[in-house]
């Protein structure tokens, strides 16, 4: 069989394709985004769409499943919070065509706002969850999920996490098999799909009966595997944690669970009989541990030594379990003494001047999820709260209600285009409806930036690059009842400050939309064309070394220490330097310099 090196995400896409999936909907989110992108670029038999948010994605896939089509929704861990409403109830209605929800966790919070453990959703919703540990299992489990879904009339959760989703390992490829499920909608099935109390009570009982059947299935699920080696110690584990444990202690025995909910109780009982002591190795919550303890077993180790936060690694598993016997590698250099290298807004990014303007205005900025969250880092430090997609608008409104007239002129919500369409429209409607007076700025850079350039309802293109309707933010604002709507050029700091100050001070809802400010990496929007000069340089005759331009945190600008003076005799401790390979000529630093020391460069 042909083997290919595949990323976990690509393998999930492949598994879905081989399973005969017809419909896939998702909202991008690290580390899950590549799944739908891969489907869109590689598998024409699957219809893919970027939904405005995860709730819609689950609803779209649920509707498709109801016709008999195999369908899936894909999201990151926090996305399932957004989709929880349809998810918790589609768990009652069940499905017709197989329905898989992929949920990608992010232990260690590489790129997220929290570190929740999605295994809890399976128990909460009473649905099965599969957890692959490498790309081959990603493909195999994704494929199996649809069979399980149809056999037991349930949505199936597939849980990945950063180290599974973004790791590559060899995958044996198979062929696509179309589903044989008859397609169509049957009105007579309404009692199954209309969740009013009288029907819910029937389905509620079904859910419990289904869980008993799934428990029996878990006992013979072929990816719940016992590996009996040295019987002194047996490890119960799943996902990538299993691989870490296996790496650190290959000699021990293992019970490796491919299905983490429901648990195979009899198999666990057998394992406890076969080995002397049991250790549970799992990342994040004591999920398996709580359940296994509740079955009445005593374990040798679990969360007493293994951390319940951040991600595990072979080293952490080894260190935790060996305790004092663990010999750490020699420390040659203390890494904490080295300067860190955090990500930064790109040179020329339209967020930079906008946040500089907000900083100058002394505004309290309610932020949102996107690249612009980087504006919270020094030296900009111009974003002061951020919890979840769309929260900025509602939070600013709440703060203004609490502060009353004290808040006028001091508070603003900033939200990206994709994030606004995901979760910002409803709270903006609320601002108007409840007679609020907060100011919302849409940072429209024409793309979902942070997750790597996914289309959305405001870009004018579908995931397969077909032209489509493009949302007009001004029209949305008008329709919601916002009377004061302004457009700003974020690259014009002075005018931005004037307009934002005016709008923040108004005792009515305001909407400010950034215009002509596409993401610097979005080639089709030709973001560099509006800059008049290809790059700028420092006129060292004039630079006084005041460091004002360093405040914008442009990656192209750096400090060069060294005593000296300007041509007209001002003493200085150094000058700044502009790297012409990085400078794009956005003129933001030019506006910040008080001494006209930043001048157009000559090619």
């Amino acid at each position, binding site marked *: 069989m042909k083997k290919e090196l595949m990323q976990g995400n690509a393998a999930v896409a492949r598994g879905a394709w081989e399973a005969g999936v017809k419909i896939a909907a998702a909202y991008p989110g690290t580390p899950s985004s590549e799944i739908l992108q891969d489907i869109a670029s590689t598998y024409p038999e699957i219809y893919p769409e970027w939904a405005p948010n995860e709730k819609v994605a689950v609803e779209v896939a649920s509707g498709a499943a109801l016709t008999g089509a195999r369908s899936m929704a894909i999201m990151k861990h926090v996305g399932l919070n957004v989709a929880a409403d349809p998810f918790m109830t589609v768990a009652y209605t069940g499905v017709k065509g197989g329905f898989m929800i992929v949920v990608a966790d992010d232990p260690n919070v590489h790129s997220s706002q929290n570190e929740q453990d999605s295994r809890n959703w399976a128990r909460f919703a009473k649905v099965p969850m599969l957890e692959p540990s490498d790309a081959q299992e990603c493909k195999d489990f994704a494929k199996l999920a649809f069979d399980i879904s149809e056999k037991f009339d349930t949505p199936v959760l597939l849980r990945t996490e950063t180290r599974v989703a973004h790791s*590559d390992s060899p995958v044996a490829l198979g062929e696509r098999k179309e589903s044989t499920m008859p397609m169509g909608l049957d009105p007579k099935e309404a009692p199954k799909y209309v969740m009013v109390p009288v029907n819910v009570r029937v389905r509620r009982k079904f859910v419990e009966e289904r869980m008993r059947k799934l428990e029996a299935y878990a006992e013979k699920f072929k990816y719940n595997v016992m590996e009996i080696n040295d019987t002194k110690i047996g490890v119960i584990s799943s996902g990538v944690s299993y691989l870490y444990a296996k*790496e650190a202690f290959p000699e021990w025995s293992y019970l490796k669970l491919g299905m983490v909910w429901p648990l195979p109780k009899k198999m666990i009982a057998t394992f406890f009989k076969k080995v002397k002591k049991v250790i549970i190795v799992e990342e994040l919550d004591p999920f398996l541990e709580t359940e296994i303890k509740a079955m009445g077993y005593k374990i040798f180790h679990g969360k007493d030594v293994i951390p319940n936060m951040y991600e595990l690694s*072979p080293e952490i598993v080894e260190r935790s379990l060996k305790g004092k016997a663990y010999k*750490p590698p020699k420390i040659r250099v203390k890494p904490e003494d080295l300067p860190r290298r*955090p*990500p930064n807004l790109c040179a020329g990014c339209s967020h930079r001047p906008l946040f500089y303007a907000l900083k100058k205005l002394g505004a309290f900025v309610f932020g949102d999820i996107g690249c612009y969250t980087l504006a919270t880092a020094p030296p900009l430090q111009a974003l002061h709260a951020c919890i979840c997609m769309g929260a900025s608008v509602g939070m600013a409104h709440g703060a203004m209600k609490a502060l009353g007239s004290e808040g006028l002129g001091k508070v603003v919500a900033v939200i990206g285009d994709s994030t606004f369409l995901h979760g910002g429209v409803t709270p903006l409607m609320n601002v108007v409806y409840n007679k609020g007076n907060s100011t919302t700025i849409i940072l429209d850079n024409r793309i979902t*930036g942070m997750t790597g350039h996914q289309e959305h309802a405001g870009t004018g293109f579908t995931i397969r690059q077909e032209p489509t309707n493009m949302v007009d933010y001004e029209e949305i604002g008008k329709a919601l009842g916002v009377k004061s709507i302004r457009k700003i050029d974020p690259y014009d700091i002075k005018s931005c400050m004037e307009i934002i100050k005016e709008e923040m001070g108004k005792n009515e809802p305001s909407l400010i939309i950034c215009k002509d400010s596409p993401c610097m990496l979005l080639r089709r929007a030709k973001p560099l064309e509006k800059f008049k000069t290809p790059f700028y340089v420092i006129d060292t005759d004039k630079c006084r070394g005041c460091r004002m331009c360093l405040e914008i*945190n442009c*990656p192209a600008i750096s400090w060069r220490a060294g005593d000296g003076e300007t041509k007209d005799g001002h003493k200085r401790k150094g000058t700044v330097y502009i790297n012409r390979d990085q400078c794009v000529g956005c003129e933001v630093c030019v506006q910040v310099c008080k001494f006209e020391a930043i001048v157009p460069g000559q090619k």
Partner: protein
Amino acid sequence: MKKTKQNGKVTNIFLSGVGGQGTILASNILAEVFLKAGYEVKKAEVHGMAQRGGDVTTHFRFGKKVYSPIIKYGDVDFLLSFELLESIRYINWVKPEGKIVINNQEIFPPAVNLGMAQYPKDVGKAFTKYFKNNVHMINGQEIAKNLGNMQAANVVLVGAFSNFFPEIKDEQWIDALKTLLAPKLHDLNVKAFYEGKKAL
């Protein structure tokens, strides 16, 4: 230089650099080569926020049977680093007998740009202190520039690194390059590979 023969055990390669330097392509070349050579390959990298300018690392492992996609801290056989600060950051990860290839390039992080932190001095010396003759500094930027394209520095580094694997033929590396790169980039990168190979 001393040649290293792979003998069935898992080999751990850690790649580090700065976003935009082409470390991902380099790790993809390694993957293509070792997978085709019949090994099991696992690699792990962290994507995330538009990592432009952020640090980038890849854990790359190959052998007969590989479990974890992540290398155990302290178990790195080869450190292949594209930037000086991003090499010294991982010095503790390398085995005492490990081998190190470093691109002799400085890219300042924000704190250094702002004059608030010092860029580490004498990175090469710090490595030599512990790893003696196993440290190889390569002027990838300069070599690539002489070939007419700075972007090829990553392939120069791969060329240098290829010296450690005498059981892999040049053609296998070149095939991998050609599989992964657009045809118009083939000539440049084949040259970059050989220049890199000569440089170590």
